[in-house]
Structures are given as C-alpha cells and as structure tokens.
C-alpha cells in the first residue's frame, strides 16, 4: 500500500470519519444535484434547500410530520458529513448559501451513472485514444529538451490519455454491473415464470454475449495498436533519457493491459455462465415445463428415511503396486548396552577408630567425671587433630546415652583441646541418682 494511503487511513481513523446516509438523504442529494445541473446553479440559499427537501419528502415519505424540521436536521446531517458546505461566509448575519461538495457529487454520479460499454462508445474511445497516442509519438520525436518532454508528452499522457483509458475502465465497470443485472434478471424470470421465461432468458443471454464478443474484438484489435504506439514513445523517451516520460508511458501501458485483460476475462467468465444457463434451460426447464421435479425430489427427500435407497457406483480397488526389490540390509538389533551385574568385591581395611573412641569414652566415664567437658578433655588429645570435631559429636552422643547428663536451660560454653568450644553438661554419678 502506498505511503499516502497509510497516511489517509491514519487521518480518517484519527478523525473518526464516517458516512451514514438514509434513503431520504440520498434522494435529497440527487434532487439537489439535478436542480443544480438543470438550472446551472452553483449554490442554493437556505430556503431553496428546504423546499427541495420538502418536495423529496412528499415523494419518498408522503404524510411525514413536520417536514420543515426534518429538512433542518437533514441539512445539518449532510453538513456534518461534509456533503454540503456553506459557501457564503456570512455567519449569523444572514441565511446561508450552500453548495454540494465533490463527495456528494461523486455519490450522486455513482447512482446516476448508466454508462456501459457499447460497440459505439468503445470504438469512439479507442479511436480517440489512438489519435492522441499518434500525436504524442509525433511530439516525442520533436521534443528536444526536458521541458518539451514534460509539456508535450508527460502532461498529455497523464491527463488526456490516462483519462481516456480510465473512461474505458469506468464503462467496463458499468458493463460488469449490467452483466450482474442480467444474471439476476434471468434467475428472477425463471423463478417467477419458469417455462414461459425461456425465450426471454435466451434473448437476454444472446444480447450480452454478442455485446461482449464485439467489444472483445474491438479491444483485441485496438489495444495492440495502442501498445505499439506506447512502445514507440517509450523507446524515444529511453533514447532521450526522459525518465519521467518513461514512467508515465509505463503507467498508461499497465492501464491498457488491464483493459485488454478485462475483455478476455469477461468473455471467458460469461461463456461459462452462458453454457451453464443454456444447459439449464435445455435440460431442466424444457424437460420439466411444469416444474414438478423439484417438488418430487422434496417429497422423496422428506420420505427418504421411511424408504431409504442408495445409488450404486463402481468402486474398483486401486491397482496394487509392488515395491521395487532392494538388496537386503542386515540391521543390528536394538539392544541395551551390556553391564556386569556381579560387581567384584574389594578389600577395605576395617576402620577401628570409632570402636577405640567408644572404649576410651567408656573408660573416661568409669572415672566418674562431673561434666561432658571432663570426658572430652580426657579423650580428645589422643584423637588426630583433623578428626576432633567429628569425635566431639560422637563423644557427646555416647555420654548422652550412657552417663545420665543434666543440663541447665542456659548451658555454659567451655573450651576443650583443639580450639573447640562445647556446650557443657553436668554428669550425675550413677551411684547417686
């Protein structure tokens, strides 16, 4: 999406721009547009606006209450949506004068437009376009400066030629709308009249088909010539180094390509539709003039569960294709790695130290010490320095189990050999419980 589109989308979003038009508003705009065109008016005074609205109201909503008040609201709605603008600048001094904005004109023109391509209009447009392109080619040959290129080639390409091609495209859209209308009409005719509508449907189809075929023939012939002329102009621009002109030619070439592609695409799509409808008319409408078949199928379907049946179809199994023969590859089986479940025994020297410590503690206790610190001081000097901390724990455990210690709530910290301090317990003599 071009940057400008993003900016526009952003600003529309920011301003909360929206359009909301009631049918009566649209009719009001159409009436204003027609009045302005017929009377060559550039604006309407307030009174004229209100009169036009009242007239429209009489047609689309006869008998509506208080048309004057509704007219005031309608004018305000249109002004809020920038469809009507006040052009006099007199403010409150006097009643205002209003004009339709280009947005309002565009909306009305959309509804009023009935331009569709006909052989005549297309031929006229393509011939004018070819003449313009031929003039451009001549001008391009004569152009000697950048200014010449801009004035004689780029400007006409952007305005005249681009407008002519856009004119063809616009009429193509008109024809598209006409085709849709034909398709809708064919459906409605058959729905309403069935067999009696066959001839009229056929006529509608044939008319559109011949129109499309003629248009496509004109397009095929003339777009080739246009592309040839555009190529010549582009060649001249390239030789001169007129970049702006090259770009303008390319844009118009793209438009012409689009016009040509439209022709073949529409003819192809219409051809499919034509065949389909033609077959429908021939195989269904003509063979079932009273339109009884639909009703019978409806009944069949409604009663299907009571009398179910099923269509039979062929169902041959697919041909079995054998795989190509491959040399056999021996793949090793997936196994767990082997592990020796019988772990060999190893000789370990018996650690006698805990037992010796136990004996020494027991011997110390036999001497009836009065505190844990006394036992520790007696036993610990024989224990190697690195193991003393561990030994203190073991001594305490044994003393707790064998010597009936008591302890105050606050136990005193006492130093023992090996820079260790312990919380001391008082030991009661076993012979004095």
């Amino acid at each position, binding site marked *: 999406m071009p940057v400008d589109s993003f900016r526009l989308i952003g600003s529309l979003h920011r301003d909360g721009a929206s359009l909301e038009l009631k049918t009566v508003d649209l009719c009001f705009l159409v009436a204003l547009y027609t009045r302005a065109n017929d009377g060559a008016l550039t604006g309407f005074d307030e009174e004229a606006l209100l009169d036009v609205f009242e007239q429209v109201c009489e047609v689309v909503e006869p008998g509506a209450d208080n048309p004057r008040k509704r007219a005031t609201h309608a004018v305000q709605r249109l002004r809020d949506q920038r469809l009507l603008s006040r052009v006099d600048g007199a403010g409150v001094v006097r009643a205002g004068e209003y004009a339709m904005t280009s947005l309002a004109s565009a909306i009305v023109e959309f509804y009023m437009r009935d331009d569709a391509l006909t052989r005549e209009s297309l031929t006229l447009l393509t011939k004018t376009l070819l003449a313009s392109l031929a003039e451009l080619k001549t001008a391009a040959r004569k152009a000697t400066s950048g200014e010449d290129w801009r004035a004689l080639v780029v400007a006409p390409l952007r305005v005249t030629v681009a407008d002519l091609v856009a004119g063809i495209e616009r009429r193509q859209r008109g024809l598209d709308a006409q085709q849709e209308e034909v398709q809708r009409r064919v459906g409605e005719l058959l729905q309403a009249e069935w067999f009696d509508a066959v001839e009229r449907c056929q006529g509608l189809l044939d008319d559109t088909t011949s129109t499309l075929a003629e248009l496509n023939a004109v397009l095929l012939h003339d777009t080739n010539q246009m592309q040839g002329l555009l190529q010549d102009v582009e060649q001249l621009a390239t030789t001169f180094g007129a970049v702006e002109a090259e770009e303008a030619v390319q844009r118009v070439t793209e438009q012409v390509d689009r016009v040509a592609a439209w022709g073949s695409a529409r003819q192809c799509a219409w051809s499919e539709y034509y065949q389909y409808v033609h077959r429908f008319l021939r195989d269904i409408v003509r063979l079932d003039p009273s339109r009884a078949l639909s009703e019978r199928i409806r009944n069949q379907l409604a009663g299907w569960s009571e009398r179910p049946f099923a269509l039979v179809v*062929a169902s041959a199994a697919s041909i079995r294709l054998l795989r190509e023969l491959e040399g056999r590859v021996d793949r090793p089986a997936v196994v767990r790695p082997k592990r020796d479940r019988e772990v060999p025994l190893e000789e370990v020297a018996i650690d006698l130290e805990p037992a010796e410590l136990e004996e020494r503690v027991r011997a110390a206790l036999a001497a009836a010490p009065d505190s844990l610190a006394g036992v520790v001081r007696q036993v610990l000097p024989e224990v190697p320095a690195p193991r003393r901390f561990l030994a203190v724990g073991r001594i305490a455990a044994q003393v707790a189990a064998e010597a009936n210690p008591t302890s105050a709530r606050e136990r005193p910290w006492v130093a023992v050999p090996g820079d260790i301090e312990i919380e001391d317990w008082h030991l009661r003599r076993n012979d004095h419980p």
Partner: protein
Amino acid sequence: MNDKAFARLEEVVLDPIFPEVDVALRQGRHIDRDEGDSYAFLLDAQDTLEPFYMRYGWDLIHASDGFFYLLPRGDQLGQRHLSVGEMLVGQTLALMYLDPTTLQAGGVVQRPQLVARLAGLIGERELVSALNPRRRKYDERIAQETVRTEVGKALRGLAGLGFVEILGEEQLRLRPPLLRFAEPVRGLEDPQSALARLVAVGKAVMAVAEDAEEDEP
C-alpha cells in the same frame, strides 16, 4: 460421426487420456461436459469402450443429462452404494441444482446454504439421527458438530465421484450428475415402481438401516 471416432480398441487404449479416464470411471467417477477433454474422449470412444467394459461386468452409461459413468452389474470388479450422508446431501444438492436462484452464481452454492437447506427439509433432529444413528442421547452442540462433520465427509465423497466440485472452504459447484439423485422421480410413473425398476437394473439398492446404538461418552 465425429472425426476423431476410434475404429479399434487399441487406438482407444493408446490414447494418452485413456488411463486417467479409465481409472476415474473404475473408481465410480461421473464425467460430465465440464471435464471437456475426458468427456469428448468418451464420446468418441463410447462405441468401443461399451463392449470393453461389458466384459468386466460394467455398463458404460451415457446419461441424457450429459455425463458418463460405469454401472456395475456384479461384484466382479468392485462396487459400493452411497452412504446415508451422501444420499441426503446428494438429494439436497440436486434440489439446489434445479433452483433458478442457483443460476445467478453459475451453479455455485455456499456450504452453509446446503446445511441450512438440508436441516430445513428433514429437520435437525431427524438429520442428526440419520447421519449418526449410533448416538442415542441428544446434545445440541455435539449434534450440530456431527451434522457439519458428516456433511463435510459426504461432500468429499460426492466430489470424488464427480457429483460436485469443492471450490474452497465454503463454495461448491453443482454438476449435472446430481440429476442421478432425481432418477426415481424423474418420469411420470409412480416413484415406488420407478425405484423398484432402478433397483432391478442395479442402479440403486434399498439401503439397510444401521442398528447399533451408542451412548454419549
């Protein structure tokens, strides 16, 4: 007589399009005018292929509505009948095919239109029980999901057989073979007699109801 009419079976079999058409027909596909090359080939080769397929126990049928298909006369090379879902969806599509409003879109209909039409014609509960007879309990959410799933399955089956063309998530192009679903009511005779005649010639079978029941999980 067409210029390209084949004189001998060998010429037919050697035609580049033969394998594709042959496999499609054997798998139950209906080939109509929209499949331009295949249809034209069958038109040209019809006289040669009819006796060829007859030897396998199949009739090569050229319907007046403009399509070909193989009709099995025995079990020699395989046959099947359409499922309940395929039959219900097929009949509804046939009805839509005959509707002039379908013309505006050139025979293209929307899948939700089909489901709505089907439910409108048969009734939602009847449709659920027809499409999933094993389920006894009715839960609206599961029922609707079942209908959509079964309709989708039926459409894939019908598309494989050439009755309809699936154009994307939502769109379907209806094709002339759908008129096979209208065969029992096409003529002036009584529909029951017409159906009996179709069964007698092997074009249809009387469907067997599925009787197993299944509770909600």
